[in-house]
């Protein structure tokens, strides 16, 4: 009987009839909400009672010493790691702990990995094409057509990331910085609501860093962006809100000036950084 009923719900039976727009509900507050999240690997707590909220359209920087749990936190949000306890919500409708990686990705959470991984054998254009938000099941992918609309969209992103001239080159020949931008471009093609960017400027030259800062600040507002970064100069240049992680939980939160004058933060992180700089 319930099967028959399900057949009458036409928009549920046929996936393609379901609305395509991102169903994330942010009317009641933040786009990402993590509460009391704990992850332990054999007793070691990589994340320890972490509470974090990201608002819609916000650009947030996450800093913290090595082993503070930054990467693990991203793994949890993207479904790669399951927390031992706690809850993670995307908008007020989606419990991310009940979803797998592809579902979370198609919901609108994009992640840029620390090491740029682009598809080296494919051209820059094709890399962006594959990343595009689209029906990613087998037959729609097999019969997918290249329309003017899609081409325009890819051209737009090529423009944003500054790789228009290299569109037909295989991604394998790009420089390190260019690969990072291509990765960010691939994220943008997914029309994400939330971008997770892991160490975007590691190994970049000064000019590349500036270009990346422009790119990321340009994205905020349209998307929520979470940046994990070690380079304090870079964080200072883009950050409005900074969260400091330490031993798997939040140590301090606020503007860059607020956190950098926080004695606890100075002790665990910035102090160490100053010593390194000295």
């Amino acid at each position, binding site marked *: 009987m319930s099967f028959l009923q399900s057949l009458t719900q036409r928009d549920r039976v046929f996936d393609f009839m379901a609305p395509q727009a991102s169903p994330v509900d942010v009317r009641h507050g933040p786009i990402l909400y993590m509460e009391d999240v704990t992850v332990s690997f054999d007793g070691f707590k990589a994340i320890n009672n972490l509470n974090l909220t990201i608002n819609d359209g916000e650009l947030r920087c996450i800093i913290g010493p090595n082993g503070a749990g930054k990467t693990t936190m991203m793994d949890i949000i993207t479904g790669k790691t399951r927390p031992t306890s706690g809850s993670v919500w995307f908008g007020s409708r989606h419990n991310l702990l009940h979803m797998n990686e592809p579902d979370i*990705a198609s919901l609108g959470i994009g992640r840029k990995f620390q090491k740029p991984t682009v598809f080296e054998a494919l051209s820059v254009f094709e890399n962006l*094409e594959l990343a595009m938000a689209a029906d990613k099941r087998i037959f729609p992918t097999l019969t997918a057509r290249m329309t003017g609309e899609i081409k325009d969209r890819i051209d737009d992103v090529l423009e944003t990331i500054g790789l228009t001239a290299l569109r*037909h080159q295989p991604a394998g020949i790009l420089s390190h910085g260019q690969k990072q931008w291509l990765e960010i471009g691939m994220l943008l093609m997914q029309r994400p609501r939330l971008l997770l960017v892991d160490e975007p400027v590691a190994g970049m030259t000064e000019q590349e860093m500036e270009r990346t800062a422009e790119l990321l600040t340009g994205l905020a507002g349209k998307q929520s962006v979470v940046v994990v970064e070690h380079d304090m100069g870079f964080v200072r240049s883009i950050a409005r809100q900074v969260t400091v992680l330490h031993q798997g939980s939040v140590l301090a939160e606020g503007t860059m000036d607020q956190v950098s004058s926080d004695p606890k933060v100075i002790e665990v992180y910035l102090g160490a950084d100053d010593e390194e700089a000295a």
Partner: protein
Amino acid sequence: MSLTTESSTNFWLTRPFSERSTQIFLGVLLAALALVTLLHVAVPPDNPLHVGAYTVNLFGKYLSYALLAVAVDLVWGYLGILSLGHGAFFAIGGYAMGMYLMRQIGDRGTYGHPVLPDFMVFLNWDSLPWFWHGFDMAWFAFAMVLLAPGLLALVFGFLAFRSRVTGVYLSIITQALTFALMLAFFRNEMGFGGNNGLTDFREIVGFDLRSDATRLGLFLATGVALALGYILCRAIVTSKLGRVSVATRDAEARTRFLGYRVERFQLFVFVVSAMLAGLAGALYVPQVGIINPSEFSPIFSIEIVLWVALGGRATLYGAVIGAILVNYAKTIFTGVMPDAWLFALGAMFVLVTVFLPKGVAGLFRYLKRRKREEQTTDPDHQHTSKEASA
């Protein structure tokens, strides 16, 4: 590759026809088919240019191997799955065809039983095993040629890809698969004729298998199957799905992260490839007149991979070149020095790996690129090529 991405011809199955490499491939293949047919039919047998029925038959065998190599290149070259067990799908397609041909013998077998094939009478079986039913009908048997290997690939691939088995582990499992099947098919109790396999075929859909005309027909049918299989594979690799496959090959985790269910794409391509291999086997069997468990042998599956490697991986036409070259060399060598063949194969493989790491197809590409570079250094051409790329 990028040019096809943005080309305006957009229906996936017709996309290969706008590619230059496919046009050349199909042109050469059709010309070769026409030439062989002409030399066989129109040139009198005493003329040195005459192509005899034996040679036509031999070429037909090469073409079925070429189709098998295309199937392997599809999964290895574009999906990164090194299957060392594709001989299994080839053999199963062959057995499906063999079962049909056995049922066609009818009561003309040595024992004259109206239904049971000779080997079953010999084993004192009194009725047909359940899986032999239906194979007296051509449509059913021909459907099984595709469905039986497809089903095996579906079940095997589902389990392997779902558990995210990749790389050498997957290669080893495919090898084990074909080895296990070989052992099983060797057993008389399996009902596939044991180590003798299926043979003594007489006719296929009413045509006498021993007549020259039927041999020519089978040769041409194999050529057409190769052309269609090639077009299908090309259509797949030039589609967005093909680019997802390449992405999976190079960075599987990253592809999964873009929202593609990688294991389903792998399964789809694997099943298509297995069905093509089955079709190749089905065309092979009536031309050689026998199918036995040796087609399941791991060595044969490894040899297929060698053909593809020699011809050039991830080009499809390279697989065809490799399969034909190696098998032609094999025919010559086993005629001249039968014992030296494996050494020759090994030497060929070493030489190609050292001097032509991308196979024979890689040589073509290199020459083409050099020609283009020569053109661009020429100032007159430089201008036009810039315009073309803009």
